[in-house]
């Protein structure tokens, strides 16, 4: 059943919940919780996220400070709360950028073929052959100190790391769809390339691309977290979770909860995304492509 008819069917409205696979439900619950938490953290936190001296530095868990305090006396839970929307927004924006570029390039490449396809694919292969973290670091260094730590750069890096991988998926889908007769019908009508790619091919690649999107989205927090951990992410004191883990890793013995808190947040987010993707792909009859 395709997505469009699925959504317009009465069954969808009546017992959507019952018809969805288990992982999808669990994933959706986790993601909704994360979303609410992020919205709440954006508007209100118990203490300011950069407020020093909220309590005695390095004191452990208490009702006032459920995740303790860090070295300079900032409330870790407040930072964690405020960081939630940053992680979500960066992941979402970065993946979206990769998706738009990758899909456009991939669908064109798969449909047009020929020299355009050859050149695009060689560039894409070159980029995929570099480990993604190394590629990300190279890009951050190339961007120069002026941009270092800016959210725009992170979004751009995530997008650029993802684009080649998404390009390949979109290209494979387009190549298969391009052989269908409704594409031939459009060609016989004299439709232009863009029109065929966006009217005929894109809607039919939507299933594959949607699964790809949510799969990529689930890896994005890890990528952003890793950059933050290595000190190439968001500029401090912005409480991005990876950065928080990095800041507090010296305290692992003295106050483990300051590291585990953000770590658990990151883990639950990624697990939520993965379950959601798994369920979604089952609903759409698609198989997610393994690997980052």
């Amino acid at each position, binding site marked *: 059943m395709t997505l469009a008819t699925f959504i*317009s069917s009465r069954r969808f409205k009546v017992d959507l919940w019952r018809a969805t696979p288990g992982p999808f439900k669990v994933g959706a619950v986790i993601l909704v919780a994360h979303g609410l938490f992020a919205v709440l953290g954006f508007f209100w936190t118990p203490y300011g996220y950069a407020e020093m001296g909220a309590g005695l530095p390095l004191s452990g868990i208490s009702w006032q400070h459920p995740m303790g305090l860090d070295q300079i006396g900032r409330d870790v839970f407040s930072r964690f709360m405020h960081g939630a929307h940053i992680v979500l927004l960066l992941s979402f924006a970065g993946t979206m950028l990769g998706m738009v570029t990758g899909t456009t390039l991939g669908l064109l490449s798969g449909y047009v073929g020929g020299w355009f396809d050859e050149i695009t694919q060689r560039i894409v292969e070159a980029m995929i052959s570099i480990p993604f973290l190394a590629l990300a670091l190279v890009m951050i260094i190339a961007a120069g100190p002026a941009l270092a730590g800016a959210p725009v750069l992170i979004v751009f890096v995530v997008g650029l790391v993802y684009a080649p991988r998404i390009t390949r998926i979109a290209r494979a889908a387009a190549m298969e769809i391009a052989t*269908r007769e409704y594409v031939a019908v459009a060609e*016989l*009508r004299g439709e232009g390339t863009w029109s065929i790619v966006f009217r005929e091919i894109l809607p*039919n690649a939507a299933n594959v691309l949607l699964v790809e999107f949510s799969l990529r989205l689930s890896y994005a927090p890890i990528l952003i977290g890793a950059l933050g951990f290595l000190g190439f992410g968001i500029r401090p004191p912005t409480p991005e979770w990876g950065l928080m883990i990095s800041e507090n890793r010296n305290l692992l013995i003295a106050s483990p909860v300051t590291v585990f808190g953000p770590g658990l947040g990151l883990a639950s987010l990624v697990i939520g995304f993965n379950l959601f993707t798994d369920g979604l792909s089952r609903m759409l009859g698609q198989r997610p492509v393994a690997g980052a």
Partner: protein
Amino acid sequence: MQKLIEVRNLNIAYGGAAGWTNVVQGVSFEIARGEAFGLVGESGCGKSTVAYRLLGYGTINSLVQTGEIIFDGTDLLKLGATALTRLRGDRIALVPQNPTTSLSPGMRVGTQVREMIATHRALPQGMTMEARIVELFALVGLPDVGHCYPHELSGGQQQRVTIAMAVACNPDLLVLDEPTTGLDVTTQRQIIQLLADLRARIGMAMLYVTHDLALLAQIADRVGVMYAGQLVEVAPCEELLSAPAHPYSRGLIASIPTTDGAERQGRGLRGVLRRDQMSTGCKFEPRCDFATTACRTMPQVLEPVTDARSVACMRWRDVVAPQAPVLVKRENKKIIGEPARLLSVADLNLSYGRPGLFDRLLGRTSPSVVRDIDLELYAGEVVALVGESGSGKSTIARAISGRLPPRTGIIRLDGAALAPALKDRSVEELRQIQYIFQNPDASLNPRRRIRSILERPIDHFGIKVDEKALESVLENVGLHAGYLDRFPEQLSGGERQRIAIARALLVNPKLLICDEILSALDVSVQARIVELLRSLKEKHAVAMLFISHDLAVVQEFADRVAVLYRGELMQLADIATLLDAPLHPYTEMLLEAAPGLRRDHYVSRPPAFPVSKAIPGVGCPLAGRCPRQVGSLCAETRPPVQVSDNGFIRCHLAADELATHASPADHSDFAGQVRSIS
């Protein structure tokens, strides 16, 4: 006669997201030892589900609710996996529908036959495995092809291999699931001949599942007609075909196009099988011409009416009563005045794959798949392009539509030469030629509503239409405005093809190219699309290039027929001439091989010079296969084109010579039997 297998009250349901659907309901029949039983019905009627159950096989989501299949005293449905494995292939064997996908592509076919014999330890005493395999191949009329891989064999040969595998262990029952559906008509006839021959020699029983009643006429003793999961009639084959007792059987038989010159009014069946719109009574009631109010509430069960016949219809007496056939004499329409020439194709040569730089340097060219085509189409005329698969019918259509630039040759529309490539043609030229594809599932974008599918060409070509345009075009093709907001997958195959036709008609084309548009549809649906096309032809005076493998369908509304063989036009003639006096040996072969509704014991005539094989582009493509070959002349020189008053014949034999010592059989007899040349 002794019963070999008996199916009693079989009920099978398929599980899905929406719960259980009853697919097979209360089916009971038996097959005697050595008997050939045919199971016929339209797609989705459950015939294959029943057939596979005879092998104890069902898909994972199917459930046998009640029923027994008694084979040799045991109930197959109660057997365990091991016992079934022992039985399958050994005592009950399957010949699958598609040999290309059912033979393992990476294994030599000899090894695959060996596997079958070895699994069941069925090697006869005192015989080596190699000898047995060669013997089996000889039995199905193959040379020793054991060392070949499946792709090295033709479709017909592959099907012979699967038959050899099936009979390897001398089974008692052979289950055949549409074994000739994908084959050309001449090959199809050879397979049928082979099966009849094997039955006579080995004496096994057969269950032959097909949608093609004409095929069953050639091979089956008794036939069961299935509708919506129920057997509605079981009768001896001849009796069923001459006097069907169930309204559905009657409609099914009437749907089969024949060339007896009769135009049956309102022939065939109306509506389609909708499992969601079943009445509590007779399943066929919504589509039945004989239905009364009682039919809607009273379930009909299969009851014996004569000693050999059972029918599930209380009004069978009215149905079986002979009707005076409405014979409408075919008018030989004389076109008044000289019609305008719409399309002319001159000296067309086509090949796939453009030569690369190296090929050009070395002077290599890829071989032409279509050679020297000259064809003309007049305004409002329907020309059928007929030939076996791979003869280049669709390739020619692709060239005319611009999807395949020809190597040489000119295509003119209304006297103006069309650009060879699609991108060089003007919008107006594109509008004038509309293409309808074979498979309506693939030619409608599944993610767009019908409204958007139909509106797009109007927007694209900038045609000014009134608001009612979409509704009126839907009405034209027999649908209504309610379809506009549906997605293609909510429509049946026939409805989708109607939408595809509507889309083409919306832009007022001068030429419709219909590429096998009927072959993906059920017989009853085909019959109604033919009606539609015929009415469109009369109403809109649109010219059509109708590509088909089915001469019988073509004769219902084509004006002229072009017969294509291996990329060359063999004959062009008006339809009446072609059927009455085919003249060309290839046309004769096609007409003879097509099965009719009577058993004809057809045996194909052997080629006159089987050794002198045709070389593409040199001699006549039919050389080596032609029963009337003159000698090596045919293989070595191109046959001359002999122009007649309404077409031409390409043959070395002169037209009067072809007419005089024609084949032993009478031509008018073939005309009654013509069906398809797939």
